């Protein structure tokens, strides 16, 4: 018997199985399965996401200096996060305990560019169709083209914000993709004055549009407060990095874990020995592990990472506009918005605003043009790098042998941290919206809305044509497909 309601049906035999399945392009895939009884009541709801099982094997045996480039090929959507987390871990291996100011600021600039473009893409392209048109609205409108038709300025801003973030990455990483900007111990290039000035030209517009995006999410909450407050909402413990003074810091900090009521589990813990705080549980029904806080055990120790955690559980945001928006978010609806699953979207836009502000500030710092790029020290055999990636805390851990080859690698990606929390969210939605109803595409989309709030990173590094991105099948107790919904192919 599972400790978690709806994780495992008491009597699964005879129940109907509904599968919401983004079919794999060429590798693993995520899917949701629902077991329904004869009265259309949900008896079991599970989200399965295939992990990047070959990560470690792919990295092991490589010379350590190749790793920051190789890991970008693990994930096509957040290569910069893997690039920087790997470099942070390998800084320790080369003994660079403190980077030069130029190196750290260039890496931060790259990271904020990544956060900006990722959050812009998620909100404007993926989530805004649901939020602007409604979760159960006509599927034909729920896409970026539908948004562009109804709200052309919003769609255009989304595209240009994304493009700007990519330009920041291109200038700091050296290339549009497969960048090499960060290396163990520092960076291999600084910005030229011309590159800095080119980025400066548009940065104020990016700050303004980011602020508009925060306000847009607020208006969406105001228009349908009950839905936004309650949709898939649950109480969760949290984990994130925070700066020594408690500020939100997406690049570096100590680990902070809190109970749902905000009381401390641990704070400012050095992540060098993260395994003393975090362990991972395997469940037979999922390929993806379930991390938990060791101090609380596997049943009570699950937690949530990502934008909603970072914005609500840091003491302040160190840029003024984002911090003002954070305080308004925390106060809105007596604090309930900041506890809601759809609050992820609001928090994500606050982080986008913070990133735009941070980019603006860095572009006015002459250290970006400096020539002191590398640090070093006594060679170490092991290194751990942790970064707050767009989707949450990302851990890279390497052991390097005497031949400079990676002997062991361990990665815990953001989506893995959120595995249990996402499962809780879909169960909450299933209970509220699907129980007792005949399943429709609109209702099934409610499940996906809950998943999308977390912005999970499915296996995305490969892209090939000829597969359907999403299929939904309703299967009866004998295993016969009685109904199916298939979305357009790529």
């Amino acid at each position, binding site marked *: 018997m599972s400790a978690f309601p709806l994780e495992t049906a008491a009597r699964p035999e005879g129940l109907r199985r509904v599968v919401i399945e983004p079919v794999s392009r060429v590798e693993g895939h995520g899917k949701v399965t629902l077991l329904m009884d004869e009265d259309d009541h949900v008896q079991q709801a599970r989200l399965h996401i295939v992990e990047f099982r070959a990560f470690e094997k792919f990295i092991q045996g490589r010379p350590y200096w190749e790793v920051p480039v190789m890991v970008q090929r693990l994930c096509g959507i957040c290569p910069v996060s893997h690039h920087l987390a790997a470099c942070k871990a390998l800084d320790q291996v080369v003994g660079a305990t403190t980077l030069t100011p130029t190196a750290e600021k260039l890496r931060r600039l790259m990271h904020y560019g990544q956060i900006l473009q990722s959050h812009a893409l998620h909100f404007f*392209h993926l989530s805004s169709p649901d939020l602007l048109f409604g979760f159960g609205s006509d599927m034909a409108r729920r896409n970026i083209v539908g948004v562009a038709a109804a709200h052309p300025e919003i769609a255009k801003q989304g595209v240009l914000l994304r493009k700007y973030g990519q330009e920041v990455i291109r200038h700091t990483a050296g290339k549009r993709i497969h960048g090499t900007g960060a290396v163990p111990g520092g960076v291999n290039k600084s910005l030229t004055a011309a590159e800095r000035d080119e980025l400066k030209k548009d940065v104020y517009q990016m700050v303004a549009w980011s602020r508009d995006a925060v306000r847009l999410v607020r208006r969406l909450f105001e228009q349908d407060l009950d839905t936004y407050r309650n949709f898939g909402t649950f109480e969760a413990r949290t984990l994130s990095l925070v700066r020594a003074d408690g500020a939100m810091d997406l690049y570096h900090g100590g680990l902070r874990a809190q109970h749902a009521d905000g009381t401390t589990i641990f704070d400012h813990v050095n992540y060098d020995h993260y395994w003393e705080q975090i362990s991972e549980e395997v469940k037979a029904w999922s390929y993806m592990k379930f991390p938990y806080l060791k101090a609380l055990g596997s049943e009570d120790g699950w937690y949530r990472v990502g934008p909603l955690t970072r914005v609500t559980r840091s003491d302040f945001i160190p840029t003024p506009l984002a911090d003002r928006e954070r305080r308004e978010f925390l106060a809105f609806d007596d604090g309930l918005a900041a506890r809601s699953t759809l609050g992820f979207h609001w928090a994500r836009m606050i982080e986008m605003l913070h990133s735009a502000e941070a980019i603006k500030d860095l572009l006015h710092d002459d250290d970006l043009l400096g020539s002191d790029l590398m640090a070093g020290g006594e060679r170490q055999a092991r290194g751990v790098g942790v970064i707050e990636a767009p989707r949450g805390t990302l851990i890279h851990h390497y052991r390097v042998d005497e031949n400079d080859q990676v002997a062991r690698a361990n990665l815990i990606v953001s989506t893995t941290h959120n595995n249990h929390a996402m499962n809780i969210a879909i169960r909450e939605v299933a209970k509220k919206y699907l129980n007792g109803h005949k399943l429709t595409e609109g209702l099934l989309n409610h499940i996906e809305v809950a998943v999308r709030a977390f912005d999970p990173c499915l296996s995305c590094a490969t892209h090939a044509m*000829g597969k359907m991105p999403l299929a939904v099948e309703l299967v009866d107790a004998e295993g016969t497909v009685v109904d199916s919904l298939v979305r357009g192919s790529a």
Partner: protein
Amino acid sequence: MSDQPPVLVIAVGNPSRGDDALGPELAARLEAAALPGVEVITEFQLQVENALDLVGRERVVFVDAGTGTPAPFDLHRAGPAAEFLHTSHAISPEAVLATYEKITGSAAPESWVLCVRGESFELGDALTPAAAGHLEAAWLRLREICALEPAT
């Protein structure tokens, strides 16, 4: 008048995932060939901002690996079309074209999809022999399309 090269080739794929490297491999050959009037962009996957890369082009060719698609390759015209996805991680050539039209208010340039059949996409694997053969066939066709003569 745009100063952009009139032909844009957007090659999509991850060079470390077996036959998904077909797109980047063709892009590398095209860059080495340095054909006049042709710009090459390589991406892990298509995204909304690729719509901005289309501005000022006369012809766009999307090159990608396919699974379960015709061998050695399939070449077809692409037109704008909306799509619905569960993820923000990639969009189709048709959605890029549709996004272009919505944000620029003008018709998308003539666009083609060159889909080269792949067989295996495992992380860390090299091209399969079958895909290597498909690549050779596709390379000849790709050069022809880039010549800006009427493609058929």
